[in-house]
């Protein structure tokens, strides 16, 4: 998008724009050291990039400056785009904020614009022409960097959400044909649905006969989620598995009674240990201390 913009806006006076940009690039190349110093001074003044050391700011500023000039010179944004992504990957984990990234790019734009003012201040017609060529290109660059940064952030957020989602509902096999599903934290409708899905798939994959759902770690649930839990228990029965729910808090017990769950269908045991013992009984296991069976 940014690329097309850069080219389109240069269209009306294509030839002269190219010439002007070439001149501009030459100017920026000649004054590289001085403009970069000025830019870094203003970054420090504006208290941007406080998470980074002075040397790091200098190194980053140099490469941003060079990519910036290169983008103006080649009039393509591909290199800058990949540089922006690379930069975002490096600095996001260090806690650099969106406003800082956008801020430094806009500062660079201003610093360069100022240098153009002072160079052409005697020739206002030329100044106008140079700015006409410079402004759309500079804006397209600023947009590219900002979009690249935000896109990287969103990618990280999506990745983390995915990780949380996977971690939040483990289905564990404790014995042949016995699964436990410990649930911890808040259950919202989305998580409840995902939980059901994982449990039903787990029952199929492990050929489970008994499932213990432990909700000790759930402080409270609303009527919708409680209803969902009941539906899950019923669905598991259709797959031929029996469900034991353990660790119901007093609040949840109240919710279940209030929504009028048929308690005949729900097998509940006080705590996880009791639930596993009950499950073992259902499966025909007999577990006890060794000393009981082998007299000393």
């Amino acid at each position, binding site marked *: 998008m940014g690329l097309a913009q850069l080219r389109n806006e240069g269209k009306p006076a294509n030839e002269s724009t190219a010439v002007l940009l070439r001149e501009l690039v030459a100017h920026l190349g000649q004054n590289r050291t001085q403009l970069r110093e000025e830019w870094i001074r203003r970054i420090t003044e504006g208290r941007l990039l406080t998470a980074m050391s002075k040397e790091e700011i200098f190194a980053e500023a140099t490469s941003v400056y060079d990519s910036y000039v290169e983008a103006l010179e080649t009039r393509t944004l591909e290199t800058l785009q990949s540089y922006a992504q690379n930069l975002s990957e490096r600095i996001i984990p260090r806690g650099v904020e969106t406003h800082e990234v956008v801020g430094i790019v806009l500062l660079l734009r201003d610093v360069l614009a100022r240098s153009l003012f002072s160079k052409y201040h005697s020739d206002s017609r030329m100044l106008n022409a140079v700015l006409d060529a410079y402004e759309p290109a500079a804006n397209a660059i600023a947009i590219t960097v900002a979009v690249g940064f935000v896109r990287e952030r969103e990618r990280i957020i999506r990745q983390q959400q995915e990780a949380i989602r996977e971690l939040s509902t483990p289905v564990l096999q404790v014995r042949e044909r016995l699964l436990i599903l410990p649930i911890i934290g808040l259950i919202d409708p989305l998580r409840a649905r995902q939980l*059901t*899905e994982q449990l*039903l*798939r787990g*029952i*199929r994959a492990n*050929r489970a*006969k008994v499932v213990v759902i432990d909700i000790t770690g759930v402080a409270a649930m609303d009527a919708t989620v409680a209803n969902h839990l009941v*539906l*899950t228990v*019923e*669905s*598991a*029965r*259709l*797959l*031929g*598995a029996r469900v034991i729910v353990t660790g119901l808090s007093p609040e949840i017990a109240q919710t279940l009674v209030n929504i009028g769950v048929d308690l005949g269908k729900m097998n509940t045991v006080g705590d996880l240990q009791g639930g596993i013992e009950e499950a073992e009984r259902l499966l025909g296991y007999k577990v006890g201390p060794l000393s009981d069976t082998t007299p000393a």
Partner: protein
Amino acid sequence: MQVPILKQGPYLIATIQSALTDADIVQLRDALVEQVGRFRSRGVIIDVTALDVMDSFATGTLRDVAHMVRLRGAETVIVGIQPDVAFAMVHMGLTLEGVTTKLDLEEGLDHLNRNIKTTAGR
């Protein structure tokens, strides 16, 4: 499509292989209830693994089959309900109450073997 009913020892096994029309399901019901008597079967297994949807008519009819077969002196097990299907059914309130359901054919046979042995042993 007609559902084939296989006689396997004391059991009848009906494996549904594709989506069924209402008429097919009624036909299956009548055939099963009739054959339970003819073959003196002790158990009926209906395998629905291939179904990716179970509407209220199908569920209701299968429940009827189970109840009718019980009155004819045999036990019915429905096996192979897919996870998604199970959840959709429960959501619509189709819970197959009073009907035994098992994970797959193997589990169903296992259940019947166990139950019928205990009754015979007494």
